[in-house]
């Protein structure tokens, strides 16, 4: 390969060999970068432990899927495609950029393997990559400046908008692409002028374009463009590198780690403190997150990794209805706090004894329904639920609990249900079935049943929801199952108790229920409440317990094996349009999307439509358990919003498979003034209407 221009490694300017810069720039920049990263690691070192080193196979799979294959990006098509182009462009160009840095010192440098046919493929690919990235950057710029998608906006309460940062980085990237191409374009144009065999430049790329533009340029122009573009590339490359850990582009560096360490299980809540047994919890000085360093290192890595893309908040039901919570700012405020107290230059600043009221507000943290929409959406694997629960644990430990929740919590402690109703009346709902069949109440020692129906508190006592309990019992009876309920031995499942941060109460409820279930001798548990299903499956997660099934799974199995037969809808039913609302604790937290739909589709003549927000993008109805008692600040109820979504889909009947969704949506219909036009029914209720006896 012949060179028509003097390379940066051999060039001199005012008698100074430019190779000095080629050596100095990387040394200074890498040293600075290492220093910045060391400072950035400080809060992670001071933070609490987290157990994220297990099951490397699964973690690598997540990295391949979510990081490398950019799995979640196309959920937002335009932004997703732009990102994928830039992402793969960066991956491809990282080799070329490193090569260029070394070429400035040793002009003939080529990475091993790249002087073969592989190099031909690679250099062609990188020419197109640089061009594609350039186009993507222009598109991103136009979106940012012209179209301004709403999810990037900064609400006033959260301070200054960060568009400048996005535009600056887009500028960096554009300059990198242009300078790299110009560096090469000038070299090739000079080769052509000198009649040498030119290096290959892929057609229709930036470099190819520069080659054409410079075809008749003076040699000196080409020489200085070659050198200048090299050093501009070099400086911007290293400036960009050191700029990454300053803001939201930190994700370029942290994302691969964050995805590797992301949670493997869903539906569960992390322990109060890793490495501390349940029995030793009483000895802990403090619970949950109070100081910033009470977060785990993964929490802080999450803060660093947030790219401010707004997808979490765009899907957050609390944010949508105007509650004072936006998950995006849980991350950004945490990150800014870390940056402020662990600055790059100067000494660390002592963090607050309690961050509640400083970074986050109480209402913000209580506003979360733990629906999981944010975590489902985040393309970087950032988690929110555990942080929110840990901050609630901190508040509960300080006695800082909204008055509206104190009474139900005390009632749960004393009577095992949030209403404070009497234990002995827990199975009273079954009396209405006395004429049809007897529901076994497994209160006395020695009474047993094959299947345990875990009813849970609200379904046991709430008048409306009792009909779900009755329908569930009818289904189990209709399928010929030997089943029973725990009666007064059952206490609240504790799904929300745990998620509201009252860990010790949760532990008591869990221990009570585990013992009662074991004593019942049941071989499986069935429940119609996704919250109970979730907590037994994912939080109790005890080897002593029999497997737990949600009634929709039970129905799907028993319909397919013929034990339950459903008749078709009558004429009136056939006129209706049904839609299925995915409960968060069935869908997102446990991946049960198809069973309830299969049950609905087994009913003849049932016309079913999907809402735009369905399956893992379902919109929370506003939550269950203790959430029923919390009085949030909000502009509109989530239930109302959900009813409107169903109406937009053309539905007249909303079917759900969760007693809380049922009441919240029922209330939503009333508040929206759509009584008589819309109705809601639980899957079990619908099935019992159609069951052939």
């Amino acid at each position, binding site marked *: 390969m012949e060179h028509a221009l003097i390379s940066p490694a051999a060039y001199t300017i005012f008698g100074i060999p430019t190779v000095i810069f080629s050596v100095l720039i990387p040394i200074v920049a890498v040293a600075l970068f290492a220093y910045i990263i060391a400072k950035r690691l400080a809060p992670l070192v001071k933070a609490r432990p987290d157990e994220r080193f297990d099951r490397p196979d699964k973690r690598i799979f997540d990295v391949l899927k979510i990081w490398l294959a950019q799995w979640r990006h196309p959920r937002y098509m335009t932004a997703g495609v732009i990102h994928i182009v830039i992402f793969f462009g960066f991956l491809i160009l990282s080799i070329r950029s490193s090569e260029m840095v070394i070429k400035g010192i040793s002009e003939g440098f080529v990475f091993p393997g790249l002087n073969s046919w592989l190099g031909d493929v690679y250099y062609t690919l990188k020419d197109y990559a640089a061009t594609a990235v350039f186009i993507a950057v222009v598109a991103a710029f136009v979106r940012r400046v012209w179209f301004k998608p709403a999810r990037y906006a900064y609400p006033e309460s959260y301070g200054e908008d960060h568009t400048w940062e996005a535009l600056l980085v887009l500028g960096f990237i554009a300059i990198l692409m242009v300078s790299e191409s110009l560096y090469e374009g000038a070299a090739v144009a000079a080769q052509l002028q000198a009649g040498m065999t030119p290096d290959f430049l892929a057609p229709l790329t930036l470099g190819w374009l520069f080659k054409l533009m410079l075809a008749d340029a003076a040699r000196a122009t080409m020489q200085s463009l070659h050198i200048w573009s090299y050093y501009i590339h070099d400086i911007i490359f290293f400036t960009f590198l050191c700029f990454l850990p300053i803001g939201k582009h930190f994700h370029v560096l942290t994302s691969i780690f964050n995805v590797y360490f992301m949670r493997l299980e869903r539906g569960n809540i992390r322990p109060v403190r890793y490495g501390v047994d349940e029995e030793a919890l009483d000895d802990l000085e403090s619970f949950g997150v109070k100081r910033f360093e009470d977060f785990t290192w993964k929490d802080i890595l999450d803060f660093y990794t947030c790219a401010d893309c707004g997808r979490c908040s765009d899907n957050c039901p609390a944010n949508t209805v105007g509650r004072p919570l936006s998950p995006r700012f849980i991350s950004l405020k945490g990150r800014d706090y870390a940056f402020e107290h662990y600055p790059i230059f100067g000494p660390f600043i002592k963090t607050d004894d309690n961050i509640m009221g400083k970074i986050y507000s109480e209402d913000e943290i209580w506003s979360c329904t733990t629906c999981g929409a944010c975590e489902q959406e985040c393309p970087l694997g950032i988690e929110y639920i555990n942080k929110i629960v840990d901050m609630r644990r901190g508040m509960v*430990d300080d*006695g800082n609990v909204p008055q509206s929740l104190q*009474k139900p919590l005390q009632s749960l402690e004393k009577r095992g249900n949030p209403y404070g109703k*009497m234990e002995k009346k827990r199975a009273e709902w079954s009396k209405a079935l006395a004429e049809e069949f007897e529901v076994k109440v497994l209160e006395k020692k020695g009474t047993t049943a094959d299947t345990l129906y875990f009813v849970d508190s609200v379904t046991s006592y709430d008048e409306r929801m009792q009909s779900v309990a009755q329908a569930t019992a009818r289904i189990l009876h209709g399928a010929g199952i030997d089943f029973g309920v725990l009666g007064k031995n059952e206490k609240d499942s504790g799904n929300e108790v745990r998620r509201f941060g009252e860990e*010790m109460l949760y532990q*008591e409820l869990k221990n009570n229920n585990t013992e009662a279930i074991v004593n019942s001798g049941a071989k499986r548990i069935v429940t119609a409440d996704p919250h109970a299903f979730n907590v037994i499956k994912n939080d109790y997660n005890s080897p002593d317990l029999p497997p737990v099934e949600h009634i929709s799974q039970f129905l799907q199995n028993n319909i397919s094996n013929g034990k339950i037969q459903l008749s078709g809808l009558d004429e009136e039913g056939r006129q209706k349009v049904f839609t299925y609302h995915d409960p968060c604790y069935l869908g997102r937290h446990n991946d049960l999307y198809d069973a309830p739909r299969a049950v609905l589709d087994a009913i003849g003549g049932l016309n079913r439509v999907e809402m735009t927000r369905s399956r893992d993008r379902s919109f929370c109805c506003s939550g269950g358990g203790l959430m029923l008692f919390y009085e949030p600040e909000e502009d509109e109820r989530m239930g109302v919003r959900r009813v409107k979504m169903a109406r937009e889909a053309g539905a007249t009947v909303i079917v759900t498979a969760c007693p809380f969704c049922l009441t919240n949506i029922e209330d939503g219909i009333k508040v929206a003034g759509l009584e008589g036009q819309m109705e809601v029914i639980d899957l079990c209720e619908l099935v019992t209407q159609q069951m052939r006896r």
Partner: protein
Amino acid sequence: MEILVCVKRVPDTAENEIEINSEGNDIERDDLVYSVNEWDNYAVEEAIQMVNKHGGSVTVVTVGDEESEEVLRREMAMGAESGLLLTDDAFEGSDGKGIAAILKAAVEKGNYDLIMTGAQADEGYAQVGGMLAAMLDYPYASLVNMIEVGDGKLKVGREIEGGNMEVNEIELPCVLSIQTGINEPRYVGIRGIRKVASVDIPTLGASDLGLDAGSVGEGAAKVKRIDYFVPEMGEGAEMLEGSTEEIIDKLIELLKSKGGIK
């Protein structure tokens, strides 16, 4: 400031379905759960906040049986430093004056600047606070919903008719009965109670307090409960039926005909 807060263990009326026992002289207590009288929580919270701001300590005291220790622990979990359980067979069946006499003896054994009680108890008569103040010859303010600490004095506010506020100055030592709403009592979880589970709570009986057993208890009570009954459902309730619109129309008609609206 040394503050003594008098608290009481009461059946949790909100959580229980109250029934009269077969003898008709008390409520059926078998299935009841008990908790701290709601007003007392506000008093304890206020005391803790005052001590946090101005120094001193909070002691909680109750007259009752051994089970009453549970409410003392709950209040200590909130932040009261020490508890005092006044228990004696001789105390049983005391009327309000008897309870006040027992508490007075306990107050005199200590060195308190301020005595606080709840304005009333769920199953009580709102009389102990006033009587205690009279027996101690201390100044008394009732239904207090604001306290500001001054030098040897307190400014206390209470809500009067129409939501207006009245502010009085009161000299220490004094007795205050606290109204709900003065603050937002903190939450006490199981963890908090466990933390104070092993703190020793001194128990004092009649002789420890220097009380003549005949001056308190059932024998000395001059107010005696003679009956308990559930009022019979009166007539006059009318359920309006129909759709929401129809019910509204009927209601407006009724209100108009009775002169409620014009």
